[in-house]
């Protein structure tokens, strides 16, 4: 192992072999450099290709009608037939994302607080941390199946509430992770100073620790919103989708990812074009939220 790892240390018989060895080592090193450069370029090419495809195919179909009209069946190329839009899906997505965030954030915040402030090193705390991390990477379609069995079946049908609940379950572990990380970064001297002034612990946490960790917590919530904005699989099994604008949370509700999924697979060029417009909206929305989240974190820390 050591001779192959560090050939420089192996005994050298004469100058010729030494030079050959040096050349070989340099060549291996250059090869690695080119490989790494190529790998990085490949990663960037994928990103560029996705964004370029979205811009190219999405911008062409993006017009005001996409934001104002509801779903219409394909026009079969008839210019007089009404062109559909994604208004129903955008409204549905906004409602479900907002509700999911509103339900999931407080729970995630409390769990993160528990892990960072009350349960450091305890068995229950470690179990909660482990489970939360598993939920963070667990297949989201299984969360859809869970909500289907526990909400959709008892309620007797797909509903916007079920969709919002599924999204809330996805929000929780994202907020837990960032909240705990950020609270752990706060120096203990700050906590001791506040408690030393006679403040109860809960005031120390809510008035001082949360304020100190605010940029991180906001980042976590933004990342959670970005994550659930694009979630498709769980919504397929919970709010199912709808082709008209509906704000009734008790019935099936449209959402942008589902509308994209259905229209992209419809096989009709005009519907696929609308799907690309939706894909463009959703991707640049998600990327914008991500960039803002990074800026929030960088500006205040």
């Amino acid at each position, binding site marked *: 192992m050591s001779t192959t790892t560090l050939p420089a240390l192996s005994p050298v018989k004469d100058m010729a072999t030494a030079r050959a060895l040096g050349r070989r080592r340099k060549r291996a090193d250059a090869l690695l450099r080119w490989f790494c450069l190529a790998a990085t370029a490949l990663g960037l090419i*994928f990103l560029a290709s996705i964004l370029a495809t979205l811009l190219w195919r999405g911008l062409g179909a993006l017009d005001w009608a996409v934001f104002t009209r509801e779903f219409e069946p394909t026009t079969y190329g008839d210019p007089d037939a009404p062109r559909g839009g994604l208004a129903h899906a955008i409204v549905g997505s906004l409602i479900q994302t907002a509700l999911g965030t509103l339900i999931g954030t407080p*729970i995630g915040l*409390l769990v993160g607080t528990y892990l960072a402030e009350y349960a450091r090193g305890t068995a229950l705390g470690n179990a909660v941390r482990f489970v*939360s991390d598993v939920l963070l990477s*667990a297949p989201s379609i*299984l969360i859809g199946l869970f909500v289907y069995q526990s909400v959709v079946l008892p309620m007797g049908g797909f509903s916007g509430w079920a969709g919002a609940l599924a999204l809330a379950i996805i929000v929780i572990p994202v907020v837990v992770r960032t909240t705990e990380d950020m609270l752990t970064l706060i120096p203990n001297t700050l906590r001791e100073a506040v408690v030393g002034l006679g403040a109860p612990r809960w005031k120390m946490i809510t008035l001082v620790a949360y304020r100190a960790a605010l940029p991180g917590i906001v980042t976590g919530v933004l990342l959670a919103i970005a994550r659930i904005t694009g979630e498709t*699989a769980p919504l397929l099994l919970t709010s199912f989708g709808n082709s008209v604008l509906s704000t009734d949370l008790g019935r099936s509700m449209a959402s942008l990812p589902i509308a994209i999924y259905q229209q992209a697979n419809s096989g009709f060029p005009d519907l696929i074009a609308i799907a690309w417009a939706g894909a463009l909206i959703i991707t640049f929305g*998600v990327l914008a939220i991500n960039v803002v989240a990074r800026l929030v974190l960088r500006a205040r820390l």
Partner: protein
Amino acid sequence: MSHAAMLEAPAPPTRRPVGGAGDRVFEWLCRGAGILVLLLLGAIILTLFLGGLPAFREFGAGFLTSTAWNPVEGRENYGALVPMLGTVISAILAILLAVPVAFGIAFFLTELAPPWLRRPVGTAIELLAAIPSIIYGMWGLFVLVPIVQQYIQMTLGEALGGLPLIGFLLASNSFTGTSIFTASLVLAIMILPFIAATMRDVFEQVPPVYKESAYGLGSTRWEVMRGVVLPYTRVSVVGGIMLGLGRALGETMAVTFVIGNANRMPTSLFDPSTTIASIVAMEFPESLMGSLKQSSLLALGFLLFVISFIVLAISRFLLRSRLKA
């Protein structure tokens, strides 16, 4: 303590305890939320298992080894083998494709790139992880599928299809471009940023003095990588790969778009197939409530949960040293 006692001395003994009710309420709120998360995971496992119980009862252990998928009423018969194999094969192939590239990116970002380039390139790679999976699906279907169909499949099939032992993996009668291979390709791109970010983070944790010692002995970067960085970070690197594997196993929408959704035994990597996640997404919403088909899909969901739980648990165990740091 004595300081507090001095301050307290003149006060009457009726002093209100600091915090009191508010502290207890808040602590229990936090603990309750923590317990809720534990219960949530338990409820997910239990729900999937109970939902799948009728199928497990009906088919027994044969459910795991059967390739049947027949929803015709009266002759209903469901088996898990095809989607399970599809899930595992596509995820493992995705790992094989993604790990070398992720390693290259991580090494570039920690050792080779000039400092001013590290942040923008690192951010760009991380943004790759932010793109929703349905976008990967569309991009895969409209961009990658034609490329695989016209270039990769033919080239690989003609060049290597005649090889003994592995040749059959590349020779297929399906030329639609939607296949296990395409799904693996999309999955590889999707998990690339997760593996690359983990590798970069653990590479950065190698104490500089170790690397400098090796450089001081005249080692090249590749030798430092092989002799110092990789042995030092080996466990965490495997943990990062397992994290990517866990993600690839459960990925739904992107796979659904490009795998072809054919529930029959694939004989080649270029045959269409299906995965657990994509068969659930395709067939669950349109199956009858409480039917045997739904139960079979829930049973598949339970199996997927068990597989990804094990993989994610291993990943977390391997990455624990990094998490502590």
